[in-house]
């Protein structure tokens, strides 16, 4: 039972972390605490942290056959980034 309770605590902590991250991100945008040049990267960094939490903790990406699961998501992410990058270049 101990192990299971641990898991429960972990879930809750991570959930609270995600909410806090969201609020901080929200706060950063409404104030001008960080210069607008760096802000986008900070916000994206926060998003990535949240996503990693979801994938690892909530979705068990590293469990059985994690190899294939990670390959699938990382591959898709790679192609998504490639697409976004070259589509974004169209702006210029």
């Amino acid at each position, binding site marked *: 039972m101990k192990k299971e309770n641990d898991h429960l605590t972990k879930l809750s902590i991570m959930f609270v972390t995600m909410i806090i991250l969201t609020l901080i991100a929200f706060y950063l945008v409404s104030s001008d605490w960080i210069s607008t040049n760096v802000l986008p990267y900070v916000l994206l960094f926060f998003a990535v942290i949240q996503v990693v939490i979801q994938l690892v903790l909530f979705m068990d990406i590293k469990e059985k056959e994690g190899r294939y699961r990670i390959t699938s998501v990382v591959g898709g992410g790679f192609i998504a980034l490639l697409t976004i990058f070259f589509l974004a*270049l169209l702006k210029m």
Partner: protein
Amino acid sequence: MDSILQYFRTLPSDIILADISLVIITIASTFLLTKYKKWNWLWSWITSTDHKKIGIMYLFVSFLFFLRAGLEALLIRMQLAFPENEFWVFQGERFNQLTSTHGTVMIFLVATPLLIGLMNVIVPLQIGARDVAFPFMNSLSLWLFISGGILINVSFIAGGSPNAGWTTYAPLSLKEFTPGPSNTYYPIGLQVAGLGTIMGAINFIVTIIKMRAPGMKFMRMPLSTWSMLITSVLIVYAFSALAVALLLLTFERLFGTVILSSSAGNPLIWQHLFWIFGHPEVYIIALPAFGIFSDVISTFSKKKLFGYTSMVFAIILIGFLGFMVWVHHMFTVGLNANINVFFALTTMLIAIPTGIKIFNWLFTMRGGSIRFDTPMLYALGFIVTFVMGGVTGVMLGSVPADYQYHDSYFVVAHLHYVIIGATIFGVLSGVYYWWPKMFGKMLNEKLGKWNFWTFVIGFHFTFFPMHIMGLMGMPRRVFTYPEGEGLGWLNFVSTCGAFLMGIGVFIFMLNIYITTRYGKSVQLNDPWMKRGRTLEWTIPSPPPPYNFARTPIVTSGEPLWNAYENRKENIEFEGEYEDIHMPSSSSLPFFMGMAFLIASFGFVFQIWWLATLGMLGVFMTMAIRSFQNKNGYSIPKKNVIYHDKGVGY
């Protein structure tokens, strides 16, 4: 009554002819099915979840589409046979419809599903599995493909075919320039078919990862299986990009977004998305063919494949690089020069793994005792043709040169050398090779050779002159060209070649008819003169519904060949005989496909109640499936033993 007659009078003659032939075909097939009491038989195929039957249906349906698109190719060539020619109705608008549907059907409804069909039959046999991982989903893929295919094909007689080329570039494809249902068929039809393709790919991936016989490590898999694994990964990603492109076009045409418009948005978005899909698609239809040739060349040379490991890595590398070259289709749209240089480099890079493969095939043949049966002939024809197509590909990959070649007949020549050279030759090779496995009869060798030589000679006569036409400046997608520019005789030769190819296809059909009607059953597991090397040749031809009565023991990459070397008749199987559990057949995939078809018509013609009805049907069938208990049926042990030991044959 009068108004209906009036309506028919307004129709052009080709559509009337198409209507009439459709009616005749429907009546004739209904009549024949009733006369020979084959409706139940037909239904048992439609609802089947057996991967072999599904594969065969894939092959059959895409072959029908091949005939249709091939007919269009002949019409194109007839219109272009002479300068300033006016053949039947195929000028201007109608000509655009011909080329657009020819390209669309050939790529999406012929090349891709032909390979998927063949691999559907072969991959589970090659890895020693009893079926694919998801037999139900397999059938669903088939029916989504058929629904999408019907939609694209029916457009010709119902409202007009897509007419903006197989690439359907915006802004021409937008409502503004091509109103009416024509170009709406394209995104809707392909969306449905594409959905099926993605599901099929996931099915292959999981099957290959999880259902291999014990001992069949990844590096022991035959190359057909390997190539299908990588192809499936490409499909999962590339067809998702296509799905978004099609969704975007649907939004533009039906819901009034202005993302692709040249004034308010940016038409290049379509080109990017389309080619992010489009170039990997080229490898999706080439890699499985490479796999087939690897197996065929090794079998008919009676030698182990040279450089197996490098072959595998070449496939993976090609798959990876395939995603990084798409801008070579867009060199001339005015992106910045650095982007062009980057993509020119990646394009050239991809020639390296491809070259490795070519050399490996040549080294496999070197010193082998080669038999020149039809599958092998096609493999040899492939090597020659594909190298030529590859050379023109590298030429096109050089940016300044592409400014000359772009949108000329040079490109048409290049793409046919690559696609027919790899995919169509590959499928024909594979079909001749595995026909006895699928149907238990060898295709006639003599007709096979006739088929090969007419098709290949016809091919080079059709497409070689197109290089020269292109260099002389003839643009693609034009319905005529002026006299006195020296293009006339080249085009005429090309048209003659096209008819020779047509004869080749006819001989192929004749071969199938004669073989089915008069051919003898082979009764052997390995009908290719004991040259078989892989697991599919260790089981009866055609295999029983469960493929393998017991689990094959795999200790090497070429289990059957090693058994032969040890003077054994067949490989060893392990375990006791037991009752075999089979998935039950299901009519749901068929109905879901039909629901999609209904919904699609609703979308194309913007009849919203019909679309809603169709989508409701889709969700209903999904819900039913979710609640179904998925118990299959069991084949009793004694039947399995009976068949496996050959008692009673």
